[in-house]
């Protein structure tokens, strides 16, 4: 049994003249939370649809659980498409039971599980209502329940958090973490960098149909460290200027010292001791995901990428 949940090798998909995904390689180990990050139109949804065999690649191979995403393998996945696919005229509970039964749950079992989930997501009182009577966010929660109801090995969620208020986003995030604790693999796409940063163990950054970076988020951040330092202390910043550091940014009471000052960490610390400064914090800064993204994708596509991300926030 392979350790990989998903493997893409040299995958290319074109729509007419537009290349949606270009020569893409990706490996997703089992039992992790993976974020697929990129601005709108960068090819995230196309990739997910290929993993679910809704689209077939023009070139390259897509493997799910070690083989072609056939019917048996797909049924081990809970899939939440970007467009909210629901039977609008069906009642909430009936729809969930239908989906559960379709995936092999007995009717009773589907009913009781759906009931529990509805309670957890505070939708119990809506269970007899038609889906079209629910708000967009509630519809999305119902659909999310449909995705996890049959307890699949893997969750593939296309923009699961968009359109949800912060409280519901947190509820969903908690569930995703819980599923991970239970050994599930979770792949989700988002254009919200901060959220991916909170949730993911691995990330895959996409820009303009190409992979920018992928890998373990912590390792990625360590590797991407610039060497900039954040210092918090009592008193004025005179000792820093005496050290020859002029280019200082003040962020939330902390002085950020960019690497451009060419001053070693050791000499800063030594100066603080020498001058008798009371240090509260001394930290080698890790770059945010956004910074990493801009650093790498920016070279080829900063303008549209940032515009798209900024606009989507």
């Amino acid at each position, binding site marked *: 049994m392979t350790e990989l949940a998903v493997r893409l090798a040299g995958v290319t998909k074109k729509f007419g003249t537009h290349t949606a995904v270009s020569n893409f390689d990706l490996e997703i180990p089992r039992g992790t939370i993976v974020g697929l990050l990129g601005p709108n139109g960068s090819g995230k949804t196309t990739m997910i*649809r290929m993993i*679910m065999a*809704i*689209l077939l690649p023009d070139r390259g191979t897509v493997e799910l659980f070690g083989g072609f995403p056939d*019917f048996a393998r*797909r*049924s081990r*996945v809970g*899939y*939440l*498409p970007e*467009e*909210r*696919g*629901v*039977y*609008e*005229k*069906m009642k909430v509970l009936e729809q969930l039971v*239908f*989906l559960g*039964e*379709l*995936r092999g749950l007995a009717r009773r079992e589907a009913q009781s599980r759906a009931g529990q989930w509805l309670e957890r997501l505070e939708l119990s009182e809506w269970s007899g209502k038609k889906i079209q009577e629910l708000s967009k966010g509630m519809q999305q929660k119902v*659909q999310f329940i*449909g*995705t996890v109801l049959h307890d699949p090995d893997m969750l593939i969620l296309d923009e699961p958090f968009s359109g949800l208020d912060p409280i519901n986003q947190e509820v969903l995030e908690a569930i995703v973490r819980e599923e991970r604790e239970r050994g599930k693999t979770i792949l989700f796409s988002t254009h919200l960098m901060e959220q991916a940063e909170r949730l993911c163990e691995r990330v895959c950054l996409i820009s303009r149909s190409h992979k920018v970076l992928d890998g373990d988020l912590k390792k990625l951040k360590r590797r991407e460290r610039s060497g900039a330092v954040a210092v918090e202390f009592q008193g004025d910043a005179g000792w820093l200027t005496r050290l020859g550091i002029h280019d200082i940014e003040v962020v939330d009471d902390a002085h950020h010292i960019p690497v451009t000052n060419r001053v070693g960490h050791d000499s800063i610390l030594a100066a603080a001791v020498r001058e008798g400064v009371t240090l509260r914090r001394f930290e080698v800064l890790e770059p945010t995901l956004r910074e990493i993204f801009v650093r790498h994708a920016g070279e080829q596509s900063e303008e549209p990428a940032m515009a798209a991300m900024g606009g989507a926030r």
Partner: protein
Amino acid sequence: MRQVWIVMRREYLERVKTKGFILSTIALPVLMVGLIGLSAFLGVQSERSQRELAVIDYTGLIGEEVAGRLAAFGYEMEVVGADVGQEELDRQIMEDELEGYLVIDDLTLTEGVFAYRGKDRPGSLRRNLFERFVVQTALDRHLSALEDGASVRALIEGGQLDFESVVEETDGEDAEVNRITGIVTGFGGAFLLYFTMLLYGAYVLRSVLDEKRNRVVEVVISSISPWRLLLGKVLGVGSMGLTQLGIWFASAAVLAMFGVPFVVAQLQATGLEDVLQFLPGPGVIALLGTYFVLGYFLYASMFAAVGAMCSSEEEAQQAQFPVMMLLIVPFVLQMATIEGSGFAWMDWVALFPYFSPVMMFPRAAAGAVPWWMVASSLVLMALALVGTAWVAGRIYRVGILMQGKRPTLRELVRWVKTA
């Protein structure tokens, strides 16, 4: 199979529970039966309650005879001579002692013109009776003065065409009844088949299109194969159709068994057997069912394919045109040859499987084609169904996951090949 059942049950329940279904299936026939029953009932009742009439006869010749005939039909009649003035009768009407009266004078004898005076205009039933009896009485009077009055009367009342077949006669009157029944059933059945295939086909199309448009199908298809999904869907809509037809047939049967005798009895005619003998037998109904099932699957699969290749309602409107033509053409042809005979070559056209429900069923019901032709049409339809379902299933499979503009014919061929 369980999955097919689950999809079918959902499709069926979601449709049967809609207001539209309940309205069109139950309310409509109930309303129609009710309205027909009510109007018949009211007509008969009002006719019964107002039966005191008078005849004022200025000729003194036919008044008694007219009154006698009306009395035999249940009216309370009174004949008055010219000595009682019309003012007196008018007064009686105003005081509700009398419903109305007929005025007969010389013009009635020569031209059949007479008057009815009353508060209300006479209903069509009553008007007919009056006209028939008064004119007949006047005519009788003239005829009785003639030597060959009887033959003149016979000619007036219309001749009769006797058909003498050069083929050996089977069983006379029964055969004639069967023939008429067959034609009527055939025509009604053809219309029903045409109408239901169009209607339920459109339901299948809508169902496929809706699932595709709101992307539910992407979720569902990860758990069920397209074939099963399509089969469940078609079966679900089909069972809804059978439910609807069942209810319609049942209410029609109730109407025929209770409604018709009621009306007939009230009108004191003796035509009950005449009406009932024209009802179709179980064999013909079974044949109708067979054509319905085969025809429905044939057209449902085509409509499903159309739904799968479109992305919007407007597109579907256009794309379903060829399929609809396959239904409309035989219907028009059938209307042109209602009796199912006359154009022998049409019998062969009726063998074309897509035309068979609308064209071959009426021929079979009317007994206008030999049995082997009916059998071959069923076999051909079954074969066409297998082929059509195969192609449609492949188009469906690719189409439901395709977004964007409608495929060209060449792309469609590629879908069928690659699916």
